[in-house]
């Protein structure tokens, strides 16, 4: 048994299987950031930092004639979202019920997916992670106040900006939920759906993915050629056991990772 302590939970193997499946189904559609970046690992819960290959400035060491430098690393961040499952619901599941109440699990899955996407796109300043939007070396392309009809033009411009800096495609487009809903519901003059127009632009530039990314503010366009955006997983998303009482079992979804932008030219932010 590892640190997740699943073996201590009053949960049958069949119920664990259902919990894991429910969590996976709740997470995968929301992990928009992962759909654009390189994933390395998982390297294990014991993995604590990513080597940046750099050192701090030289200083005087503890003895005459000795210089001191410190290796720079990016510390692994742990994300954890707690949730509960009713023991009565678990018993019902074991009797064959198919409508188990996993609302709390779904809320936790949504929250941790939002947090992961926010880290990838906007960074986590408190742990030194720079996101794709803030790390971009290109001027942001504001989406403006003209509704959604300008989005295809903005996205095409962003792809052109990345390509002009020598970064090849395919190119992916991440949309915040608000932007995605607006795009899906909108049509250009003449009735041509905006979403179809954007997909056509992306097909012409290497057929990269269009992703829905809760936690992202606005839109990000990025190259998927590889080697530019590095998500290093320590422990990939996992379900662990915390405690239980007569009424409910307290569980959590957890992961550990670092994220780095190796090529700031490979993405453009399109803020709202």
């Amino acid at each position, binding site marked *: *048994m*590892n640190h997740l302590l699943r*073996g201590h939970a009053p949960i049958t193997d069949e119920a664990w299987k259902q919990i*894991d499946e429910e969590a996976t189904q709740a997470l995968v559609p929301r992990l928009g950031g992962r759909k654009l970046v390189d*994933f390395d690992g998982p390297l294990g819960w014991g993995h604590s930092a990513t080597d940046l290959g750099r050192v701090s400035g030289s200083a005087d060491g503890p003895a005459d004639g000795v210089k001191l430098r410190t290796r720079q690393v990016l510390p692994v961040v742990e994300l954890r979202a707690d949730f509960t499952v009713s023991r009565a619901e678990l018993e019902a599941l074991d009797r064959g019920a198919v409508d188990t109440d996993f609302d709390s699990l779904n809320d936790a899955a949504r929250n941790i997916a939002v947090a992961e996407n926010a880290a990838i796109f906007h960074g986590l300043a408190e742990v030194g992670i720079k996101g794709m939007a803030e790390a971009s070396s290109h001027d942001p392309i504001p989406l403006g106040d003209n509704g959604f009809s300008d989005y295809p033009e903005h996205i095409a411009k962003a792809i052109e900006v990345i390509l002009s800096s020598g970064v090849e495609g395919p190119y992916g487009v991440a949309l915040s939920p608000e932007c995605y809903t607006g795009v899906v519901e909108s049509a250009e003059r003449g009735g041509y759906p905006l979403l179809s127009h954007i997909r056509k632009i992306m097909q012409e530039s290497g057929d990269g*993915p269009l992703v*829905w990314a809760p936690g992202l503010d606005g839109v990000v366009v990025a190259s*998927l050629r590889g080697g530019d955006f590095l998500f290093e997983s320590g422990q990939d998303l996992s379900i662990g056991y915390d405690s239980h009482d007569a009424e409910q079992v307290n569980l959590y979804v957890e992961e550990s990772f670092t994220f780095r932008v190796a090529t700031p030219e490979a993405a453009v932010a399109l803020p709202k």
Partner: protein
Amino acid sequence: MEFDQYHEPPEELSPELRTKARLFASLAEEAEAINWYEQRLSVEPDAEARAIMRNAQHEEFKHFSMDLEFLFRRIPIWRKLAEGVLFKDGDIVEHGEAAEAGTEGDEDGAESTGGSGNGSLGIGSLKGAGL
């Protein structure tokens, strides 16, 4: 063109699994080469030829070790088990049994409370996936 390193349709495998499959194939090739050099060295009477083959076999030792370390890093449960077996004096089988017992709780499909696997949902890379 056929790719023998795949046991399942390659298009159904993730990029990470295809990379592992290439390294598994490379690992087997390096082991085979070490075996061949071992046999050639045992029968070659010419000292100069043996020196060249010994040098070549050392290269294969290095390649095999790098392939193995790569796979250990990508399959932590294998690494953990191997740590209980490799570079230890004493009874190899005993070390193997002890290492296996020490990792049973982490293995996919292992009998345990806590459901299958080590708790990871196994989501991994989603790169290139659409909505």
